[in-house]
């Protein structure tokens, strides 16, 4: 790698003029603040008409934050729409910059890294295969190496990963191009996994494409990004906006449709003000390795988890550290071939949110860090508020209920006093004023959807890509209704999460469920019982206050009361498929799959009966002992060691008592012991059945049964 890359960039002017960047940020955040202040003043005016209540002060304070977040979101869409309509020429287009950089061979080498943790190896290998073939089609494969960076703790999955990787390399003839490495200790989770790669091999590469286990990227787009990285030495991270794909449940289809239709507006709006001070979302991004190694080793936060200790949401912080050191972080908004998958059910989504919530709340410390630019603090703040917003909304509703209760109990009329500032200057009576303010809030809520739908209907290419006008309108209507029903449930869940974290409950590191097998009624009942009971109790209270108040509260209360059936119904893949047949909630990638998706769909190089650790009776660890090839692959990847007396005893115990009698630590020790694994392999084949555990004899027998019964996988 070019040692002087860090110095080179100092002589290059920032891509975005600092004046322009400051001006844009001033306009954007200035507009948000002005509109929010106006709305808050209007509410204050309304409260004055009512006669100020003790809760109104708190209500106003919470409204200021909540409405601020709402305005912030909506203004991203508005500025995004403006940028799409009039700012195209001024927006950075990676495609254009890559074209300007030429089409010659790449000067530097690049790594494509995929950290995995207890994932389905055939699925992530299929994605690696698709990306590999896609880059191969560009003719620039020689500049890329691929790394599967495993942090898998499940021992069976470890063996399956080894065999899948070996098969992948055999079929693609990619030995020396695709590598597999498993960490003995997965310290510091994903950030530690990437850090370990950078420390070990990072010096050989200019930049790395960081993927998630469910990521997929087009080779041509990766090439464009690397060309831009070579052309702009100031560029530290190039983040792409991944599209959600392969949604089969209603819940995932809702998410992918919403992100695909409304997402571009937000992405363009975000890009409009962040420019070179962008953020990193943890995957589907190209990162320059040298500055990453220099500045992005994460410090521990003060105190213990959940608020202190190791940083969970590392991506935002890595981008923050990069930007604070003068490196630019861009959002490659026009990169199309970048995809990921979403959790299939509401419950899986909330499980992931639990982890993200703790990680984002840890960022509170960074708000108080020195030398961080405004954009970085803005990103951190938005990340924190994505979760703190829920308890605030909850508090807002409680305060609103209390005000309504008090008002009802007092017997006073609701809007008794005219003569406030708004009334004097605009001559709007109180009822009209409250309706206008409500309408304004609803407009802010639905404006992104309206803008995106209008844009999609008006542009024939976009309209056709979503399946036409009817599916588009039906999709937006369904998405809006279901989002309204889901939002209160998510609010309640986030509130409990935040409360749990405040009370000191740290989260573990779980693997993600990527299969849409649906939520059972029992599981939904367990998870959503509290919000449902809360919703019913609140509905009774609201009805007692007044039917009108209950009607106003009904969208939220319905969401809480119905969260169990909504959670179950939206998790069902069969309903999702039924909608897909009618092109409702369909995305352009579903209706007209891009090349790399087609490649991933047919990719099966990791599966080969000649090397298989997934057969019945000899799965995973058992295969690593019994199967001559699986054992050969596993042992070949281990370091050469000697067998001591204690290890020999371990081998003997495993042999006679079976793997089930061993602790996980003992099995890990054994599996890292090359002579131990070889001794086990030899012994299970040599010794008569009486001398070893039945697990081994049955596994040995299973090879004969295949011949005797003529099973389909009979030495295929």
């Amino acid at each position, binding site marked *: 790698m070019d040692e002087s890359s860090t110095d080179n960039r100092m002589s290059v002017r920032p891509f975005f003029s600092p004046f322009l960047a400051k001006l844009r940020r001033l306009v954007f955040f200035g507009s948000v603040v002005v509109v929010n202040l106006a709305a808050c003043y209007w509410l204050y005016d309304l409260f004055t008409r009512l006669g100020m209540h003790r809760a109104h002060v708190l209500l106003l304070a919470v409204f200021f934050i909540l409405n601020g977040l709402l305005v912030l979101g909506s203004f991203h869409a508005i500025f995004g729409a403006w940028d799409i309509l009039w700012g195209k020429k001024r927006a950075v287009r990676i495609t254009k910059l890559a074209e300007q950089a030429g089409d010659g061979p790449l000067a530097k080498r690049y790594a494509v890294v995929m950290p995995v943790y207890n994932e389905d190896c055939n699925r992530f290998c299929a994605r690696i295969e698709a990306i590999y073939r896609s880059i191969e089609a560009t003719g620039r494969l020689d500049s890329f190496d691929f790394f599967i960076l495993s942090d898998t703790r499940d021992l069976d999955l470890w063996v399956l990963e080894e065999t899948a990787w070996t098969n992948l390399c055999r079929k693609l003839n990619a030995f*020396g191009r695709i590598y597999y490495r498993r960490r003995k200790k997965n310290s510091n989770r994903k950030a530690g996994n990437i850090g370990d790669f950078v420390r070990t091999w990072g010096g050989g590469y200019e930049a790395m494409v960081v993927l998630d286990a469910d990521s997929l990227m087009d080779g041509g787009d990766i090439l464009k990004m690397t060309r831009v990285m070579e052309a702009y030495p100031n560029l530290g991270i190039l983040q792409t906006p991944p599209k959600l794909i392969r949604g089969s449940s209603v819940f995932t289809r809702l998410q992918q449709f919403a992100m695909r239709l409304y997402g571009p507006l937000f992405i363009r709006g975000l890009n409009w003000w962040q420019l070179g001070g962008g953020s990193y979302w943890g995957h589907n991004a190209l990162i320059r390795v040298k500055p990453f190694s220099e500045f992005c*080793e994460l410090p521990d936060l003060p*105190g213990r988890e959940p608020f202190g200790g190791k940083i969970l949401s590392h991506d935002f912080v890595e981008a923050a550290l990069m930007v604070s050191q003068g490196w630019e972080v861009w959002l490659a908004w026009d990169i199309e071939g970048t995809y990921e998958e979403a959790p299939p059910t509401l419950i899986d989504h909330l499980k992931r949110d639990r982890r993200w919530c703790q990680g984002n709340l840890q960022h509170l410390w960074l708000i*108080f860090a020195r030398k961080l630019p405004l954009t970085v603090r803005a990103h951190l703040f938005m990340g924190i508020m994505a979760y703190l917003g829920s308890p605030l909304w909850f508090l807002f509703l409680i305060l609103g209920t209390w005000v309504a209760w008090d008002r009802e109990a007092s017997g006073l009329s609701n809007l008794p006093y005219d003569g406030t500032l708004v009334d004097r200057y605009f001559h709007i009576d109180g009822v009209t004023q409250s309706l206008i303010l409500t309408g304004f809030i609803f407009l802010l809520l639905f404006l992104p959807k309206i803008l995106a739908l209008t844009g999609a209907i008006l542009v024939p290419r976009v309209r056709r890509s979503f399946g036409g006008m009817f599916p588009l309108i039906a999709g937006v209507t369904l998405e809006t209704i279901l989002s309204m029903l889901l939002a209160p449930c998510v609010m309640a869940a986030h509130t409990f999460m935040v409360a749990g974290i405040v009370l000191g409950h740290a989260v573990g590191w779980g693997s993600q469920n990527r299969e849409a097998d649906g939520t059972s009624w029992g599981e939904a009942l367990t998870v959503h019982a509290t919000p449902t009971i809360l919703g019913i109790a609140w509905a009774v209270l609201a009805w007692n206050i007044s039917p009108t108040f209950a009607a106003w509260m009904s969208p939220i209360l319905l969401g809480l009361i119905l969260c169990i059936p909504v959670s179950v119904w939206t998790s069902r893949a069969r309903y999702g498929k039924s909608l897909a047949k009618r092109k409702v909630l369909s995305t352009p990638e579903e209706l007209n799959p891009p090349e790399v998706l087609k490649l991933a769909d047919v990719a099966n190089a990791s599966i080969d009966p000649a090397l298989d650790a997934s057969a019945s009776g000899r799965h995973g660890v058992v295969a690593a002992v019994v199967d001559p090839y699986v054992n050969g692959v596993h042992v070949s990847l281990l370091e050469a060691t000697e067998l001591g007396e204690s290890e020999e005893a371990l081998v003997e115990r495993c042999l006679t008592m079976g793997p089930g009698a061993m602790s996980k630590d003992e099995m890990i020790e054994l599996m890292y012991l090359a002579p131990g694994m070889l001794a086990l392999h030899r012994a299970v*084949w040599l010794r008569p059945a009486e001398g070893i555990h039945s697990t081994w004899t049955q596994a040995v027998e299973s090879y004969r049964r295949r011949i005797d019964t003529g099973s389909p996988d009979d030495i295929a």
Partner: protein
Amino acid sequence: MGLPHHPLETLRPLSETELSEWEEAYAAVEAYLQALRLRNRLLVAELVRAILWRASARGAKEPGVPARVLAMEETLSEIANWTQDVLDEPLENRRLAARGRLALLLADMPGKWQGVFLTPSPWPPAFKEAMCKSYLAAGPHFAELTMIPKPLELNVIGSGAAQWWETMDRRPIVRKMFALFLLALIGATVWFIFFK
């Protein structure tokens, strides 16, 4: 195919125990060859027979060693020796077994070269080349970079909060008192708002 130097006349009567032992030995060797994904049944049968003849010959010299042990030792050593001859590289005994089996897999012996398996040299050049160049590497040569975490520089508020937070972590009594204070504060606020 076949072993002409072992005519049927050389067979001797076997007891039921011996038959049962050799049946088990046969099954084990056959299963191992199946595990190596040899597809051709005739080839498997021939190899099993040849290995068992050898094991039987050894058995005559080493009475008391179970037939299965003899047969499987013969199988494993025959494969190891043969792969060493093909690979033509000195390997420590234990590593050889894994290296040999890996080479068989990566050279696609089950798919393309099962007819060559355990045959004497000369071997087809393509097979020998495929065997010799088969290896696994978990990564390229090391190209190390250092990553050293820089301490978080907090501003005045952050530093104060960090000190306070760490004190609470170190001293549970302070944490409990702080929690009590917070609860009291919340209680007082609620009382002020609702009841005053």
